[in-house]
């Protein structure tokens, strides 16, 4: 088949030189929009056996068009009858996009809907990108914080270790925990999922215990919406730690809903100046009341970073992982040049 990879409106790219080779080995044709990989450290010259063209030509010549974010497609009307594969979770209104796709007879697969099963993990872009974001959240915090992370006893006095609180110990949260621990911080984390406690402890961090979480294992790994009482209780327990924290990373997302507010303004007001909050849930409203999506604001000397796409700052690694996810997905859904049936679990859950 004929695959076209668009240049995205951000640094990442959905195909790396090594995956392009694999595509070609499978017998597919690969076309890439010019300069698509440049910002990820993949100049066009790194790709071999690949056609480069303008976006217009790309759309004309290819059956399947891929991008990192669906927002990079631009006007959907030009993709009539094509197949689109991308991350559609960035769309503010899902229903609207669905209608539009139907209107243009576009078949679209949303890679953010890959089910969270062991077998599908190699296609799961949310997992792979969340891991990178988690790492970057701590690096960014360290860059912004006027303190160093590790405890240090020197002739010029002793420096206490930085306190990091991570809210939401999913993929991103765990990676943030691991990175902060590596840098020598004291790390505490909270998450309503029962399994999260063991997972947090397995990284050597402390878990902030809150009783009474609603557990729903049928949700396939996504967190379920928690009761009001629970959220209140959690807020109280966590607030204590937050006020003393130097760095807070929040990742708490609830599938298909607005992110819960875990850090109200009142808490931020009580934190010490210089502290840093990294809110990875900002795209769905943010876990901090003051978060502004895609912005860094300062409130009483406290910096609040609202960014759900930190992984794109790690464009090189992110593009590598993303394009592997894409490749694994294609390799799974296309057998002998045909799509496998829609009855397949993974395919059907991705189809918009």
């Amino acid at each position, binding site marked *: 088949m004929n695959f076209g990879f668009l240049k995205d409106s951000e640094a990442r790219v959905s195909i790396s030189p090594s995956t392009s080779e694999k595509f070609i080995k499978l017998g597919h044709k690969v076309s890439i929009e010019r300069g698509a990989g440049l910002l990820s450290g993949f100049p066009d010259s790194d790709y071999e056996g690949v056609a480069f063209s303008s976006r217009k030509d790309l759309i004309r010549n290819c059956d399947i068009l891929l991008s990192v974010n669906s927002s990079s497609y631009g006007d959907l009307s030009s993709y009539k009858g094509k197949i689109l594969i991308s991350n559609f979770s960035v769309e503010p209104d899902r229903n609207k996009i669905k209608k539009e796709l139907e209107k243009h007879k576009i078949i679209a697969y949303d890679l953010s809907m890959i089910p969270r099963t062991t*077998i599908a993990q190699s296609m799961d872009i949310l997992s792979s990108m969340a891991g990178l974001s988690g790492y970057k959240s701590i690096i960014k915090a360290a860059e912004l914080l006027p303190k160093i992370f590790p405890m240090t006893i020197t002739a010029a006095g002793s420096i206490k270790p930085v306190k990091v609180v991570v809210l939401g110990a999913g993929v991103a949260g765990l*990676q943030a925990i691991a990175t902060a621990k590596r840098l020598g911080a004291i790390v505490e984390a909270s998450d309503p999922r029962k399994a999260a406690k063991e997972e947090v402890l*397995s990284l050597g961090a402390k878990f902030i215990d809150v009783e009474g979480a609603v557990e729903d294992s049928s949700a396939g790994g996504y967190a379920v919406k928690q009761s009001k009482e629970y959220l209140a209780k959690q807020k109280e327990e966590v607030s204590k730690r937050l006020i003393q924290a130097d760095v807070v990373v929040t990742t708490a997302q609830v599938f298909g809903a607005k992110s819960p507010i875990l850090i109200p303004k009142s808490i931020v007001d009580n934190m010490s100046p210089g502290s840093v909050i990294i809110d990875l849930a900002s795209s769905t409203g943010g876990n901090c009341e003051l978060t502004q999506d895609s912005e860094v604001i300062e409130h009483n000397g406290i910096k609040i970073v609202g960014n759900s796409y930190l992984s794109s700052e790690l464009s090189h690694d992110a593009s590598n992982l993303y394009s592997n996810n894409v490749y694994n997905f294609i390799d799974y859904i296309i057998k002998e040049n045909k799509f496998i049936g829609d009855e397949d679990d993974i395919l059907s859950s991705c189809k918009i």
Partner: protein
Amino acid sequence: MDKFLFLLSAFLLVWGLRLQSDPASASKGNKLASVGMITAIFSAVIMPLENSFSNLIWILAPLSLSGVIGYLIAKNIKMTSMPQMVSIFNGLGGLSAVLLSFAEINKWIIYPETYQLTVVIVLILSLFIGSVAFTGSLLAFAKLDGYRWSEKLSLPFQHIFNLILISVIVGLSYLFITSPDISLLYIIIILSFVYGIFFVAPIGGADMPVVISLLNSFTGITAALTGIIFGNIVMLLGGILVGAAGTILTVLMCNAMNRSLLNVIIGGFSSNNSSKKGKDQGEIKEVSDSDFAVQLFYSSKVIIIPGYGLAVAQAQKLCKEIQEILETNDVEIKYAIHPVAGRMPGHMNVLLAEADVDYSKLIELEQANEEFKSTDVAVIIGANDVVNPDAIDDSTSPLYGMPILKVWESTSTVVLKRSMSAGYAGVQNPLFFKKNNQMYFGDAKESLQRLSSELKNL
């Protein structure tokens, strides 16, 4: 001269046995003991005796014949059949004692005056114990070699029956001593044979090594008894030594299996015990601390497969420690990292970096799957789903299609986990029931701690 040689042989036997209790010197110990034995045989042949007859051919013929046979058997037997072999040998030792006692008793029947009563009692005791060792060992052999019938010999109320049998034998012996009659002797011998069978019959096949060790100490005791009769002190001492050592060894073996000796002898229910956990999937085997340690220690290549359990136990540093111990003993160690091991991408990397495991020791899935074939032991620490063969074999498994670490291609695998419970995907793992797999249960931190101290003792 001969007395001195006997003394020397006694010393060699003791010292040889002593050296055999340490892996580093065991082989030397065995050689020493065998030299001791040859010295003893030689002395017995040359020692001056009153009214001695030169029946040298009667001695040399069986000696040389059995030497050749013994050598041939030992050379051709498979390593895995060793315990069977030992039990047959032990049976032969018992038989030898029976024949000897029988011959002596025969003599007594002919010249009753030349014998003290004590001697006769000792002779009959020796006859009895030898017979038990003989048939018991043969049955143990049959059980070990997996003959089906051997597991079905047990009678109901076996223990009561055995008690009755013993009483009968004692009674008959008393009768025989008071009125010597050769046919009575035959009955005693036959009943003793039967007793030997019934003694072993109720004990489960898995406990056979313990039984053999016990029967071996029985043979030792008959040797000692015969020693008294022939007035030979080396026989006496060697027999007692083996009797004592065998008894202690039996107890140690029971301890290693977490059983009491009584428990083993009463037997019966024990054989189900080991397969209890297996459900219908087959049997699992547990490995003991020191067997695990020795297995690793004498390997040339070991691959460690870390999983979520290693992180939960926070045992990464111990894992590194074991890596270092083994590496200083020229074992090549690698870590096979499965892409989804743990609970977050790169979980194992974080874990092993914390323990400062060198990046060059980490291998990825594809490379690991090439290397397992040349691996002696694959050690799976707290991993489960990532080594589940169903991902390849069973299309109904939720893991089907996931690339997996084919650990079972290594010569043997050992799985460290706390129980038989499932991993993240919630499915049972057929690996645990494979023939070349052994389980090492316990929290990974404690398990590795145990393993590490065992390794340091080697």
